[in-house]
């Protein structure tokens, strides 16, 4: 019997699209070129489950992917990306994140305002959209990504970037460029669960 071809690793790319359209398409094509299957609503590869809303279909896609890759921008979008982040964490999917520098910066800047002394999030929010950030929910997304507040060993790294082509894409290259290594590490991760 012929040797069965290895199934491609399914990577879900979860990101807002605003002013990131062609970079996002380049990112997806980069992953396809590296040999992965890419699940991303922007390029139309999320299966629209009959009878379910786009949001529900996206959450199903999170459950089906092998690796969840989230990108956090200072513009919040519709909120689906936020829900996808929550779902990936709830399911404890193997995951990785890119976070725009402005979000990481704002987190530090506004920490005192956004959180009570016991660490609980208060109702502090932006009352107006600004050209550099439209909603503090992006900081909440960032905190979900890095496991803010969790014990150190459960926290994750979110690679900061300033300009995607300059310092985001090289991270994508480092993380996914060697498919065989990534596959082996993903297997190890599954084995350790």
């Amino acid at each position: 019997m012929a040797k069965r071809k290895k199934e491609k690793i399914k990577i879900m790319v979860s990101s807002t699209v605003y002013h990131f359209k062609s970079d996002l398409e380049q990112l997806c094509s980069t992953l396809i070129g590296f040999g992965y299957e890419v699940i991303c609503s922007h390029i139309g590869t999320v299966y629209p489950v009959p009878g379910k809303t786009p949001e529900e279909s996206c959450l199903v896609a999170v459950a089906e992917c092998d690796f969840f890759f989230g990108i956090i921008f200072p513009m919040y979008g519709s909120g689906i990306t936020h829900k996808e982040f929550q779902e990936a964490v709830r399911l404890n999917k193997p995951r990785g994140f890119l976070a725009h520098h402005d979000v990481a910066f704002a987190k530090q800047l506004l920490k005192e305002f956004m959180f009570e002394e016991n660490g609980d999030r208060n109702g502090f929010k932006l009352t107006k959209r600004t050209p550099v950030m439209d909603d503090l929910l992006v900081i909440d997304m960032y905190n979900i990504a890095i496991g803010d507040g969790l014990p150190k060993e459960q926290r994750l790294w979110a690679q900061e970037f300033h300009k995607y082509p300059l310092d985001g894409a090289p991270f994508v290259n480092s993380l996914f460029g060697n498919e065989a290594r990534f596959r082996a590490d993903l297997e190890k991760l599954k084995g350790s669960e």
Partner: protein
Amino acid sequence: MKDEQLIKNIILEGEHEQLDFKESVQKENIAKVICSFLNGKGGRVIIGLNNSGTIKGISNALKVVEDLKVYLLNSIIPEAPITINVESLGRSELIMIKVYGGSKQPYIFDGNIYYRKGLNTQKATSKEISKLIHGRQNSELHWERQITIGVTVNDLDQKLIQSTIRESRENHRSSFQGDDVLDFLANYSLYQNGSFTNACVVLFGKQPARFFPQIRVRLTEYVDGKTDNQLLRDELLEGNLFLIQSKLEKYIGNLGIRSVFDKNQWKRVDFKFPEKALQEGIINALMHRDYSSVSSGVSISIYPDSVVISNSGHLPDDLTVRLLKTSHRSHPVNPDIAHIVFLRGLIDKLGRGTLKVLEECEKEGLKSPIWKDNEDGVSLTFYGPRALASKRGNTPIGLDDGLNDGLNDGLNDGLNDGVIRGVSKLVNDGVDDGVIDGVTDGVIIEVARLTKLISQKEGMNTLDIATKRGKSKPTVERYLRTAREVGIIEFRGAPRTGGYYLSNKIKNLI
């Protein structure tokens, strides 16, 4: 006629890494090749030729061009300037598509990244994709992509941006949908997370000189020569690139008929500087100048019998190879600025500026203009009627037209394409093999000039070459050493009586 000759010369090169022939219009295959060129050093696709270059022609070419324009614009991501033209050759019509090496790699067609290897276009491997990603990092460090601190949307001429959106849509050069100014700027990387890039300010700023004093252009009209004590006009033009361009065009439009006295023939000679050629020279100077140096500038000097457009800044070759790597060599100096100028329809055919200028001057019976590049900058001089032309110690244009095109259009065209490519390959091989250190594009262009010169008369010695090039002996020696080290030329004969010859290696390449 020059256009026809150019096409013939290109066809004679045969298919290679930057040239592909297609017999018929297979949109998908063409898009794949264009995508691969954008991921490489740029190139041309000629439709209407079989693989061996035999002319088959394309019927209904004008309509095909319109369809192709829209198709390529919408299917290749990110958007890039692509020129598509119908070219006549005898009774046949061909379609020529041309692109520069892209400045926003990796480019995608149909979800995949294509790469050119020799004559083949194929999906890029992981290694090739990594190379493109790292190459792109360098492009992002370029001056025009840096953020101008303190600029808000109110500092930009929004009406100008809106008219650019409209025009680019009407002439099928942009795939951008919508009318939002910020979305449009973001689409062309001129606006990023609340900030505007330097290129954006040069293109659309209301008062860009507040941020970049070097943007000013000096316009001087002399009664006689530079040493004369009278000036007819001396002013500094300010504003964004398009405003300066339109002010200059208006001025040129009013130059009118000029008269000079021909002492030889003892009579007055009337002539007119060709408007289109001057416009071409101006837009090239504004588009390809080096904006990154605060002391750079463009000046237009008008004499009774000549016009000099000069860029006192750095040459395009100041882009170091180390900075832009080999795959970026054929970028225009300012790709983002050039793209918007292209959207506004101010560049007809990429890389054909020189030919256009030459043709226009010829039509008016004027002496061929001369491009010069030296340490002071780049200059383009238009002269009066041929009969009056005094002998000047410059290189005749015929020798350099392809090379000058390189300076003016960023991509070399025509007769010297082969020379540039051959020289570029051997120099880059030399750099890769560690034979020589990294060099600037200017060095490659100068070595190509020497190669061309030697190919016309083998056996010349250093002094001959220095005299012909109008450069000092030590300078020429430096370039010759590089050419020798990478195996482009060889010295034959005794040290005192011998001379330089082209190596077989370069002969095979050109």
